[in-house]
């Protein structure tokens, strides 16, 4: 399943690059009964119509409209970075910039936590990297049981828009690996538009931050990888081939 998924993402991106057609709500994306409306699209007679503003993506007769702007909508499997805003009797509430807060149950943290001393493990205002486990209409359930997830200690969190995240990650995580390789920092990208950078020294962290912000500002530019490579060279960072494979490989699972 994982391989198949990854393959479909690659080919999706190829198609996206080929025909990046921006559509507005109510616009006919494609006509024909053989096409299937997916996310952000609906059927009206023989037409498949855009249900939101974004880039129309047709893959194997399956029509999707990927938003290019706007707020973050969580999906199952997303990696998100947020802050603890409330502690309830059986878990924590996390603000991640979405419509509702995410809920992290005590059972979904990697170690045993005494329910009377929950603030000892995660206190108000502390930041966490969590995985979206379930998206319901009433809220989002998250977990931090897997590797690469947990409480954030040290480093810095920066905010870029959620719509810039696919560019920061790059195809198969190429962009984020390039940043990791060049700066030696650990870079974790949350799909909600938050990026956590942690390195051995602050200079390297600041360098990584500058690169991430550059990508965020130039997310719509063509040939971004070359520009970032140039920027890394200019900053005097040696872009050695990244040894570390992205820890959160599922971070590439960008819809």
């Amino acid at each position, binding site marked *: 399943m994982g391989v198949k998924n990854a393959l479909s993402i690659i080919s999706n991106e190829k198609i996206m690059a080929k025909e990046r057609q921006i559509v507005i*709500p109510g616009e006919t994306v494609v006509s024909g009964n053989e096409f299937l409306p997916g996310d952000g699209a609906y059927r009206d007679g023989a037409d498949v119509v855009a249900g939101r503003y974004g880039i129309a993506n047709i893959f194997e007769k399956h029509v999707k409209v990927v938003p290019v702007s*706007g707020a973050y909508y969580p999906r199952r499997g997303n990696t998100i970075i947020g802050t603890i805003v409330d502690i309830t009797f059986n878990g924590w509430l996390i603000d991640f910039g979405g419509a509702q807060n995410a809920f992290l149950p005590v059972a979904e943290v990697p170690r045993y936590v005494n329910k009377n001393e929950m603030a000892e493990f995660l206190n108000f205002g502390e930041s966490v990297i969590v995985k979206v486990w379930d998206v319901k*209409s009433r809220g989002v359930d998250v977990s931090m049981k897997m590797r690469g997830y947990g409480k954030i200690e040290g480093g810095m969190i920066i905010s870029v828009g959620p719509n810039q995240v696919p560019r920061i990650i790059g195809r198969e995580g190429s962009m984020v690996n390039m940043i990791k390789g060049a700066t030696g920092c650990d870079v974790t990208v949350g799909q909600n538009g938050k990026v956590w950078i942690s390195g051995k020294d602050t200079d390297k962290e600041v360098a990584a931050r500058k690169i991430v912000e550059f990508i965020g500002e130039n997310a719509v530019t063509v040939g971004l990888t070359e520009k970032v490579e140039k920027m890394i060279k200019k900053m005097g960072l040696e872009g050695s081939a990244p040894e570390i494979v992205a820890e959160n490989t599922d971070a590439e699972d960008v819809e």
Partner: protein
Amino acid sequence: MAGSLYKKRFDGRTVNEVRPMKASVGVVPSADGSATFETGGTKAMAVVRGPRTLHPQHMQNARTGILRVSYGMMPFSVWDRIRPGPSRRSEEISKVCEWALDAVIDLSGFPNTVVDVFIQIPKADAGTRVAGLNAAALALAHAGIPMKEMLSAIAVGKADKTLLVDVDKAEEDFHDGEGATDVPLAFTSRKKDISLLQLDGKISPSELSEAIEMGRKACEDVLKVQMDALKGATGEKNG
């Protein structure tokens, strides 16, 4: 319109001609969505925030998210000062804009939340609610809110016996003969449904249907401007 006292428009437009329009999206980077829309001397600005949790809780709807529109004119938008803050007029316009936009958006995926739309009018020369609606529709689309279609609005008026598209303030204040009538209209982009129709003044049923048809046609031009703004054809500040 043979016997009409208003024969030639003050600014030289034909009766079917709209004022020059301009639109752009992404004008407020911190918002989820934003847009401006200008027609002649009227300028509207709209900002969208949300979907976000709705407070007070008793207003929440467990079936769907709700839309909340607030319309206001800036104190300096007209020659005379507008008293800032809510007024009877601005509350009414907020409400009709909310109903008009409700017809095109779909918030069923975000229960218990609210999408706030703030419409402000920095420059007013009649037709502020329709300019506001055009900007709001753009801002909602820009915010990535699920929408079945776009929305375009225009005000059709009547000065004495002449029907006019996109009236300005001078025409709205026409006093001779039958005086002035104002019909703000909003049409959805795909089904061409009417989602706003107001009437202020006197008009015969046949003239009203003619006014609606004129508005429908003019909204095509409005939609084109909106589409260009969203597709980045203007090349201005797209974000």
